């Protein structure tokens, strides 16, 4: 049997906090690569619509310092997928600047491969015209207008561009948007490991310690061979069990048995999970079914703007009938906006959400539900511009603040926590695409750029900046 390919997965996400002690434990397994993901759509469309990382540069820098030092120590490549949360081109470049800063301090020259997968709408329109873009449920067919509405569009890469970068001698690969699994599967696939096992191992390890008994320890190591794979946590006192490993196929996944990836489907219907020792699980029976190559598209944009207000209410008369009060408030605010803002009123949406009662679901509470002791009533104005949303909030402010429980009663004052009461929240970011594109090859929609980073380069740039 060929030697297993081992990949150190230090955490589920770059910037979430890797541990130096775990990295040292991981290096003792003599891994062939360090790989992790830096992205997700999980937090919403803001990262992709703006291209900005959801993590601060300091948290990403701290993780990268530890990872680059571990990479240097072992002399193995470091692969990062979906840089800067979204994997948009500017998010890859943002991550490169952090890498440059760290390399400058260490003084060693490093070969960095940058994999870009942001897409030009006009190129995708050509693809669409050729019938090469398909909707995924529940989306309908994509139109050119859908593409034009996006601020950024990315295609999710498979492992092939990472493999090419490692084979080309990259010390560090900074990938744009990539499937979470592809970045971890790349080096095992490159070294000829069992394809089903490589993809399944990657799926299990994609969230780091989440496939272990104690997910507060972030790191795991996978070892993929000719027939299956093993997974174990990096922390000595943590464990993987057949149950924790098999249950991970459920996580944030609509189908627990079949996972569509670029160029194939991972099928784990017949996978068997067995304890290899008291903290390591061995998995066999995973299958990879090759399919014509497709890449999933993600697109997002900024839409309407919101301005919000929050008021606290402890008045028992209000709390006796929260839904009645909120309904009356909605009616009064709508009238006020129509009277004051004229034609603009039609474009303004007001949403009232009583936290402490039913704000999370928006569903009525059953009759007889005990009254809360207080609520936080959230006011959300949504409008085509920030100025209009704020105008709506200011217009509604006195009624939101003073609405009496019954007509003709004295005016109460509820509890605003802030002054001014209104908060400009910025745009609503929305996902626009839920489609896949067929590609002639894994590289058709991907651009690779090679950069050497070193202390000298960084110094010369700093000098140039100093003279400017």
């Amino acid at each position: 049997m060929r030697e297993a390919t081992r990949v150190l997965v230090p955490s589920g996400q770059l910037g979430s906090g890797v541990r130096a002690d775990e990295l040292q434990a991981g290096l003792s397994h003599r891994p062939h690569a360090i790989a992790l993901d830096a992205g997700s759509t999980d937090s919403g469309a803001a990262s992709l619509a703006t291209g900005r990382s959801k993590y601060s540069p300091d948290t990403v820098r701290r993780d990268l310092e530890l990872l680059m030092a571990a990479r240097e120590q072992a002399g193995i490549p470091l692969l990062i997928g979906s840089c800067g949360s979204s994997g948009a081109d500017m998010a890859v470049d943002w991550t490169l600047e952090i890498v440059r800063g760290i390399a400058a301090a260490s003084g060693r020259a490093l070969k960095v491969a940058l994999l870009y997968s942001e897409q030009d709408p006009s190129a995708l329109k050509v693809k669409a015209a050729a019938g090469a873009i398909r909707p995924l449920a529940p989306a309908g067919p994509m139109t050119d207008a859908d593409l034009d509405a996006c601020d950024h569009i990315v295609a999710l890469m498979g492992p092939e561009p990472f493999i090419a970068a490692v084979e080309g001698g990259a010390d560090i690969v900074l990938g744009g948007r990539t499937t979470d699994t592809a970045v971890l599967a790349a080096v095992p696939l490159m070294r000829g490991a069992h394809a089903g096992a490589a993809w399944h191992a990657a799926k299990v390890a994609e969230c780091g310690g989440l496939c272990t008994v104690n997910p507060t320890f972030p790191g795991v190591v996978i070892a993929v061979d000719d027939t299956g794979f093993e997974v174990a946590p990096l922390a000595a006192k943590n464990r993987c069990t057949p149950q924790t490993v098999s249950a991970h196929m459920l996580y944030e996944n609509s189908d627990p048995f079949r996972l569509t990836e670029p160029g194939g489907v991972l099928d784990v219907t017949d996978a068997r999970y067995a304890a290899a020792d008291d903290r390591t699980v061995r998995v066999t029976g995973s299958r990879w079914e090759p399919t014509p190559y497709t890449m999933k598209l993600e697109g997002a944009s900024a839409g309407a703007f919101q301005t919000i207000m929050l008021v606290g209410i402890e008045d028992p008369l209000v709390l006796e009938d929260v839904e009645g009060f909120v309904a009356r408030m909605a009616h009064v605010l709508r009238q006020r906006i129509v009277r004051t803002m004229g034609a603009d009123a039609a474009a303004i949406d007001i949403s009232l959400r009583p936290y402490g009662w039913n704000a999370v679901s928006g569903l009525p509470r059953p009759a007889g539900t005990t009254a809360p002791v207080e609520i936080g009533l959230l006011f959300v104005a949504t409008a085509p511009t920030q100025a209009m949303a704020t105008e709506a909030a200011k217009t509604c402010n006195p009624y939101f603040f003073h609405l009496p429980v019954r007509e003709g009663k004295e005016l109460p004052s509820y509890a605003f926590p802030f002054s001014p009461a209104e908060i400009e929240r910025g745009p609503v970011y929305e996902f626009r695409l839920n489609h896949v594109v067929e590609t002639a090859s894994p590289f058709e929609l991907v651009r690779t750029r090679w950069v050497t980073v070193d202390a000298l380069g960084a110094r010369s740039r700093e000098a140039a900046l100093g003279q400017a």
Partner: protein
Amino acid sequence: MAKLKDVSRYVRSKNAGPFWITLDLFFDGEDNYTRFVDAPALSAEGVARIYGVDPAQVRRYPVDSLHVLKISFPRQTPQGGAHERDMHGGQQYIRLLDLELEVASQA
């Protein structure tokens, strides 16, 4: 009749991408799983009614080895719109906890 919360050890919900919600119902032991996995309230039609979605779009995956019923359905609106109340879908399972489960008819 039993409530879901009384026959499960863990129930959770989460986005599965921006366009889907997925529910994982971890039944408490094999007996409860066998008895209630096919309960009418947990059918595609039952779940569709609770979440206001088309039953044809509800997907059910019984996972025998884990005593889990996984149910996935499209979000009524994609994650993050103007009226979003649960960005990650993490609280969507709550309305299932008090669901009365009838043993499926063949049992």
